[in-house]
């Protein structure tokens, strides 16, 4: 019991615990769309893009949240736009746009020493600086994200599964993509302080991949992934305190541990589901006999 209660006597750790748990659930929820769209690299790219925005904000003394948020959103929309030109794949678009932004941030580090100090915490994650404002931010972003996912569930599902037919059927897929990028940018921004730029991609991808191996239902995958993310954030934060290791690292390692357990338990069945997250041909079937996966 002492192990559980000891960290709670410190105000900053109580804040960090809330932020990690809510951020874990938030990243888990949005991670479902990221992996099903075959854009697992997106979280990695967007967080690096936001790093560039954060460096600029620090250099010119502009509010970090506003500046980095807008920068992340612009990068996300840029990726969407470049990806729509079918000659360029989504992965290449992420590589071009976000690494350029990251490089810009690195260049600024060389010029401004004050940028270096505030940016280090952004890269690796730091629970010591978590304030009440960070708690409010992550809760607001999580509530708004959950509300948007509920209200636009059908359009998000259709656009993720079959963007071509969704567009033909009257869904404004460009707007849905932009909405998703907006949510992702703010989720990364709200989570970056505790997760760090370098590890936030895993917080997006790992819970969603574990959830995919556990279910064949999209709705169930959404809440499973959110729950796994929340558990990873909560347990990872406790481990971070007791092991004196960075919070981002412990959260990701707990996620990986859960993934390994799910992987082992679901075996071949789970593997088959995830292996085909990218489009591929249907199973070779005898038309007279339905093929059963489970």
């Amino acid at each position, binding site marked *: 019991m002492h192990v559980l209660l000891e960290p709670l006597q410190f105000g900053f750790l109580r804040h960090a615990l809330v932020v990690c748990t809510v951020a874990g659930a938030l990243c888990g929820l949005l991670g479902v769309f990221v992996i*099903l769209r075959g854009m697992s690299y997106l979280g990695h790219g967007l967080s690096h893009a936001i790093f560039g925005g954060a460096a600029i904000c620090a250099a010119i003394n502009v509010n970090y949240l506003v500046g980095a948020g807008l920068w992340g959103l612009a990068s996300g929309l840029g990726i969407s736009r470049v990806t729509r030109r079918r000659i360029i794949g989504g992965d290449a678009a992420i590589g071009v746009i976000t690494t350029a932004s990251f490089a810009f941030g690195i260049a600024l580090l060389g010029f401004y020493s004050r940028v270096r100090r505030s940016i280090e915490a952004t890269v690796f994650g730091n629970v010591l600086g978590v304030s009440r404002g960070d708690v409010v931010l992550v809760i607001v972003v999580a509530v708004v994200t959950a509300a948007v996912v*509920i*209200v*636009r*569930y*059908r*359009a998000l*599902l*259709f656009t*993720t*599964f*079959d963007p*071509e*037919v*969704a*567009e*033909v*059927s*009257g*869904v404004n897929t460009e707007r849905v993509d932009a909405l998703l990028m907006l949510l992702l940018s703010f989720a990364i921004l709200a989570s970056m302080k505790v997760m760090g730029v370098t590890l936030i991609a895993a917080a997006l991808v790992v819970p969603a991949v574990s959830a*995919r191996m556990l*279910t*064949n*239902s*999209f*709705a*169930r*995958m959404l809440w499973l992934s959110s729950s796994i993310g929340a558990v990873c954030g909560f347990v990872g934060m406790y481990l971070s305190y007791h092991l004196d290791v960075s919070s981002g690292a412990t959260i990701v390692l707990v996620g990986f541990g859960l993934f390994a357990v799910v992987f082992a338990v679901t075996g071949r069945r789970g593997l*088959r*589901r*995830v*292996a*085909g*997250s*990218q*489009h*591929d*041909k*249907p*199973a070779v*079937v*005898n*038309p*007279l*006999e*339905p*093929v*059963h*996966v*489970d």
Partner: protein
Amino acid sequence: MSGQALLRLRGVSHNFGEALVLDNVDFDVAAGELIGVVGPSGSGKTTLLRVLLGAVVPTGGTVERRRGVRAGYVPQVETVNWHFPVTVAEVVRMARTEGRWQPWPSRQERRDVAAVLDRLGIGALGHRHIRELSGGQQQRVFIARALVSEPDVLCLDEPTSGVDVHTRHEVLHLLGELHADGLAIVLSTHDLNGIAAHLPTLVCLNVSIAGRGSAREVLTPAILERVYGAPMDVLEHAGMPLVVDRERNLAQIVNLRRAGA
């Protein structure tokens, strides 16, 4: 619009950059018609379907749609992500994305989806994951999604591409039944003998329209050579045209290459 036409294209042209994909195309779809669009890869078949659906605004010409006409679209099943976590009923409900914000289906939606699945003979499969179905059943799911919005015109892009002979027969029979129920159908196909020859109306397309009429009128050596750029013969089999390659030496060439000559 006059007459029975539901959709009418007049002088439609479309470019992708500098590439002309449709050139001065006139195309009518009347109520209850079943039209096959044939042509080689890159001939503009998919673009033509997307113009009919209103998903592509052509760079030239006019598109007229009779007031209130609804069009349903069935994509190539080869483009579907079969590992996506959705059931058959969820896929069909996607057609009702706009108009209701709640994620869960209404009772009316459940009834409508069940009715269309029953109509297509897959009523018992609503709870199944899409990957657990046979090829013919998978194709029916996507036709069901198009039908649940009660379209007047059904557009199918290569509905038999990459499927086996049994599935092809299933799809053809299903389309025949829907056509008999009065639905207008436009489909694109590469399959001249397996699909096109069985359809009442064919349009031969290669950027511009080379011929429109019955299979017997359109599948002629002259039109086929103009559209495909290769000499073809048209034989008669069981009262229907049968298209064969005129290059009689093809088998010999392949055999020589195999032998390392």
